[in-house]
Each structure stands twice: as C-alpha cells, then as structure tokens.
C-alpha cells in the first residue's frame, strides 16, 4: 500500500514553544485520516507544513511522494486545502473563485469552468454561483470554500476543522462529500476537536497533544484503550455517597461522581443486575441507570489526561 503522507520526526517551534515536537506518521492512500487534538495541540501547524505554507524546523514530510520543503511545487500540484476560515475572494463570485483556482492549476479555461460548475452542483451552490461571495451566509461560504479546495482535483485533501460554523445539514453534506472523494481515490486528512466527527468519517485516527502523537489506530482501537463498559446511575444528591459505596465492590476502577451521576467502570453487561441489587440493598432510589460504552470524547480526555473543563468567560 503506498503512502499519501509520510512524516518523520517533524518539529516546529514558535518562539520557543514546540508546536510539533517530533511527530511520526504514515497515512496510506485513499482513506480518511482523522487528526484529533485540543486547541493548540499542533493540528493546524501540521496541516500548514504539509500544505507547504510553513517550513518545518527539522524532520521530513512527504505528500504524494514529494518532499514538502525540497519539492514544494510538486506537492502544491497534488493538494487541496480548506482551512478554518473561508479563503475566498469576497468580491468575486463563487464561480469566478473556482475558475481562477482551476486555471492556476493549469486547467484550460473551458475545463476550469466545467469543473467549477460540477463542484458548485456538488456543494449545492448552483443558484448562488453568480453572486459575489460577500453576499453569502456563513454556511454557504464554507461550502464554497470546500469546493474551492477541490478545484485543483487534489490527490490529497486537507480539511482543517472543516465543520466549524456549519449547520447540521451542511455537516452531513460535508460527510457525504468526503466519502465520495475517498471513493474516487482521494486521501483526506481531517482535523477536528470532535471525536464524534472523526469517528463518523475516519478509518484511522491519530491523537495529537502538545505537539506529539499520543495515540493512534482505528476508532475501535482507541475506544478499547479507554476501557470497557461503565454504569451510570442517576440518584438524588443525598444518596450519591451511598451509591458510590454500593458500587465500589463491583467496579473495575474508581467510582466517581460526575455532576448528578455516579459512574462506575464495570466488566460487562452482566454487572448491571448485580449493580441494581446492590443499590437496592443500600436503599438507593434509582432515578435513571444506563450501561454505556465510552464515547470517543471520554477516550480523548483520558488520553490527553485532562479533566473536562468548563470555560468561564471573564
């Protein structure tokens, strides 16, 4: 299997802070690869290096077999980039934007135009195609931007947090488009802060934190890493201590109180009955009880060893 992207010991510092601190990664062709990480993990830095926008301090990165430093023009011929903000010329129409990019990719005028309209149809912007982009809504801009990143018929597509500012319908459309691209043989590198999004699209995932890859594999691998099932019981605040005590003997780890729930990691489904009996014996009234698999968000928090934080706006 040939590799669309190969990264070796990649490092990049910004003013003494390591944005990338020795990243190794290999991404095979024709898949959606999810790059996950919190804000400031180095995702965007990595994408910008791969898209030849910035140079790494050391290490090597190859895209489609071309070195991003020594052979940047060849890399640029084979990539498409959608950043976190729509990169379009506001004064031009979507059609003009796409045709310009197609032509800068050395397509003939006719080819660029035909392809532009195909893409505009794909992202559902045919009706607005002849209006200046500045008249677009946020969602329309993002879709036009996505179309623009496809105008050069990229072999490798970078989507840097592409769902930022998209409504649910546009999110679905984006997923659909990504799947179609991959069926046509494009490799997609998708960055996100949301596990759910990556879980839905990507077949391989790497988790980036503080400029290092801290975990990698398939979504199932990652979920397995964070352990098995757990039981979540909703009880009244007064009885939560009793519930913790009752569940402690059957838990595989620490029983915790999370907001209004008592959460106990357990071995499997059979322990539910046991748990109910024990809670009943302890005289705890059960409001709600659920057996859950960890969500990728929990995996993520566990891997990055961070407590969930509510951001307080001062």
């Amino acid at each position, binding site marked *: 299997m040939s590799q669309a992207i190969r990264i070796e010991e990649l490092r990049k510092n910004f003013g003494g802070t390591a944005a990338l601190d020795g990243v190794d990664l290999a991404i095979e062709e024709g898949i959606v690869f999810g790059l996950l990480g919190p804000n400031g993990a180095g995702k965007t830095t990595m994408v910008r290096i791969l898209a030849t926008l910035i140079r790494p301090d050391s290490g090597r990165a190859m895209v489609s077999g071309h070195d991003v430093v020594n052979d940047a023009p060849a890399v640029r011929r084979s990539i498409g980039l959608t*950043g976190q903000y729509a*990169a379009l010329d506001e004064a031009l129409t979507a059609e003009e934007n796409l045709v310009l990019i197609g032509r*800068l990719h050395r397509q003939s005028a006719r080819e660029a135009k035909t392809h532009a309209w195909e893409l505009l149809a794909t992202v559902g912007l045919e009706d607005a195609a002849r209006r200046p982009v500045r008249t677009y809504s946020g969602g329309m801009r993002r879709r036009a931007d996505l179309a623009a990143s496809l105008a050069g018929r990229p072999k490798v597509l970078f989507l840097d947090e592409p769902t930022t500012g998209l409504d649910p319908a546009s999110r679905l459309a984006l997923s659909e488009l990504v799947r179609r691209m991959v069926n046509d043989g494009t490799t997609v590198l998708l960055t996100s802060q949301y596990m759910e999004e990556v879980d839905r699209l990507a077949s391989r995932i790497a988790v980036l934190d503080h400029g290092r890859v801290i975990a990698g594999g398939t979504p199932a691998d990652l979920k397995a890493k964070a352990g098995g099932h757990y039981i979540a019981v909703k009880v009244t605040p007064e009885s939560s201590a009793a519930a913790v005590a009752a569940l402690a003997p059957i838990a595989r780890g620490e029983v915790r109180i999370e907001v209004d729930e008592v959460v106990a990691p357990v071995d499997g489904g059979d322990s539910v009955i046991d748990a109910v009996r024990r809670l009943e014996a302890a005289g705890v009234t059960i409001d709600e009880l659920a057996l859950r698999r960890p969500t990728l968000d929990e995996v993520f928090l566990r891997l990055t060893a961070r407590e969930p934080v509510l951001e307080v706006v001062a």
Partner: protein
Amino acid sequence: MTTLFDVYLMAGRNVRKALRTPQFILVEVLIQPVIFVLLFAFVFGGAIHVPGVSYIDFLLPGVLVQTATFGGLNTAIALTEDLRNGLMDRFWSLPMSRFSVVAGRIVADTLFSAAGVGVMVAVGMLIGFRFHGTVPQALAAIALAIATGFAFAWVAALLAVVFKLPKPCKASASSPCSRWCSRARHSCQLRRCLHGCRSSPATAR
C-alpha cells in the same frame, strides 16, 4: 511563461474586483484626477506666475507624475489587504508563481493609473494645456508618467510586504480620519483615509 500567465490571471482578478467596486473606479480614475488638475490649475495656480510658459503647461506634467506615483499607495494598501486575508493561504498552497500575487496587483493598478493619467490629460487639454512636441513625443511623455507610477508601485509593494502599511492609519484613533476608517467598509474609503492620514502629522508614524 507560466509566470506571465499567472500574472495575467491575477491582474485579471484585480481588475474584475475593482470593476465590482464602482466607487473605486469613480474616485481613482475620474474624480481624483479631475480634482487634482482643477485644484492646482485654478485654486493654487492663480497665485503662481511662471515666466515664459503658460501655467497649465508647466503644471500638468508634474501633476501627471504625482498622480501616477500616488497610485503606488493603492498598490500598497490593496496588497496589504490581500496578504492579511485568509485567501493567501489558498494561493500559497496552489502551484502558482508567488511573484504573480504582487505583479498581478501592480499590473492592474498600473492600468487604473494609466486611465487616470488619460483623464488628466483630457481635462488639462480642456482648460488649455497643449503638448509642445510631436505626437510620438506626447505619447512618450504620457508613457513615461505611467512608467514612473509602475516603478513606484514596486517600491510601495515592497513597503507593503515588509511593513504591513495600513496599520498606522487604522490604529490612529485620535485623528479625524479615524472615524472614517472605522466605518470604512470599502478599501476605496480606506484609500481616501490614508491619503488624509499621510498629510496629518498626528498619524505619521
């Protein structure tokens, strides 16, 4: 060759953009050149006597060069706007000549400045300006004014790339033009504002 083609594409983009902003064309190509000629010829001109030559004949070549040179300011501002825009990330990730972003800008601005020079010559002739030499010499004079503007545009482009020019104007909250700036939604207003800022010592930084 491909570089020239990219320059053509980028210049085309800039011309297209400008045509979408009629205020820009109106001010840069029509109103400002006319005002400059009339202002210098009638308001200031009355106070100055030039021996041996009619004042408008003395004045116009200077105003031509001045306007063409000021065109560089447009280049600097438009280029700074471009370079700050997220759009540049897209351009830089394309297999295009990077030089064409700057050159395409300058080519487009030179076209506008050439149109402005044409308007000034026309207005000048209406109020009595005459070329003293032959037609080819007259054309060469006009070409020289445009070429001067073209040359200065490169200097302005360099300044824009190095210093990110419009910042001082935007940052000057105390100046009278700042109110204008804060409302400035179109680059053409920003341009007007900068023209004002340049002459205002409070903002010269």
